[in-house]
């Protein structure tokens, strides 16, 4: 036990360089919350890493500026987090609203995935991709859009953005295990309206899947995900790997 603390403390270096993986990073982050010295050290190391980053600056490609600026005009910004008292853990019953730290990354992923989907399209697919992504953008930008991300039981994370007024949701994922071509991840809406298929996740690119749009979301619905034969099925045939109740 005596060695544990100094050992953990030394992780401040690798942590500040994003060189810790999964479990170890989580463990260090838990330690960090109660260790002022570590927090201070990590902050100094992060500023040091910034110097390394600035030293690597390079001219960005032409066209990036225009694309990013154009994207901002169709991307709704996150509201500020209202200050909570320090030391009060952010525990919530629902993953939906107050877990904003998660939402930050997830929302970015969703928005970026939309753009990526547009970017990779060949010219003849561009129009339909654009129409599709505009529908998605409507959900992402809806004033009542809520976002949640939840791990699946097989690993990886599903990210769901839902708008009640639009009665639609957008689902993306990252880090789900790759499936053989004979299988597919299928989404479900389960609730008062019965269990309805809500789309198939496309094959991942770089571990992430392009957004899937589903409409007809009803109050009281839960999002589910199962592994099904390629092409999908009309009702789930395996145990859900994700069950996420939508916010009321």
């Amino acid at each position, binding site marked *: 036990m005596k060695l544990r603390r100094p050992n953990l403390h030394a*992780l401040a270096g690798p942590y500040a360089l994003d*060189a810790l993986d999964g479990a170890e990073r989580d463990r260090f982050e838990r330690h960090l919350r109660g260790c002022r010295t570590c927090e201070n050290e990590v902050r100094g190391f992060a500023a040091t*890493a910034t*110097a390394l*980053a*600035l030293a690597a600056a390079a001219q*960005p490609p032409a066209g990036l500026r225009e694309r990013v600026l154009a994207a901002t005009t169709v991307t709704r910004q996150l509201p500020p987090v209202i200050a909570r008292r320090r030391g009060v853990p952010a525990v919530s019953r629902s993953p939906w609203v107050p877990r904003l730290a998660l939402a930050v990354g997830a929302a970015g992923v969703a928005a970026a995935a939309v753009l990526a989907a547009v*970017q990779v399209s060949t010219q003849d697919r561009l129009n339909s991709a654009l129409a599709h992504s505009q529908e998605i953008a409507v959900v992402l930008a809806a004033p009542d859009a809520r976002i949640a991300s939840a791990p699946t039981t097989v690993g990886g994370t599903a990210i769901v953005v839902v708008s009640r007024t639009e009665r639609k949701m957008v689902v993306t994922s990252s880090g789900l295990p*790759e499936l053989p071509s004979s299988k597919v991840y299928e989404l479900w809406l389960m609730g008062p309206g019965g269990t309805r298929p809500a789309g198939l996740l496309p094959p991942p690119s770089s571990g992430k899947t392009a957004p899937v749009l589903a409409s007809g979301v009803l109050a009281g619905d839960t999002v589910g995900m199962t592994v099904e034969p390629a092409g999908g099925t009309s009702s789930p045939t395996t145990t859900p790997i994700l069950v996420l109740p939508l916010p009321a």
Partner: protein
Amino acid sequence: MGPFRSASGPAERSDPDLDNLLTLVARGDQGAFESVYDRLAGPVYGLIRKVLRDPAQSEEVAQEVLLEVWRTASRFDPGKGSAVTWVLTIAHRRAIDRVRSETAAAEREQRSATAPVAVDETAESVEASLEAERVRRCLDGLTELQRESITLAYYGGYSYPQVAALLDTALGTIKTRIRDGLIRLRDCLGVSW
């Protein structure tokens, strides 16, 4: 288009002006975002490129990151560090996420996982700036093991166990060399935080 150095010079490690700009961005100020872009797109892209190498992928991730800066500007807390650090931390994490997810995918595909290839120090088109020169000098002041551990982890995007494997050195040694090296680097650069 898009000179990423403004008239006031390259982005400093702490830049109160940039902190203020980010506050304006959080309120939806497009003009302020353009200024932030012009100051930080170069470092964001350059850093991601350094880690990922592939230009097309780097551009894609840089775009994600810069849009995330717009989207999440309200979450920037000046009390926790500078705007530059906030943005570049996001950039580095995104690049690493990409590296790790690709590594995982590649390992699943090839049944025989081979060790990642060491990063060779080919000169990238790095912006010749005072900062780069200062950083290079301070890196030169580290022991070889400290320098290699830090650059493989940060620029190479390797986890520290991977760094340990590449350098054929014990895990605990790498962990402490990274920390000791960062302390020396921090003091040499006169970083304030």
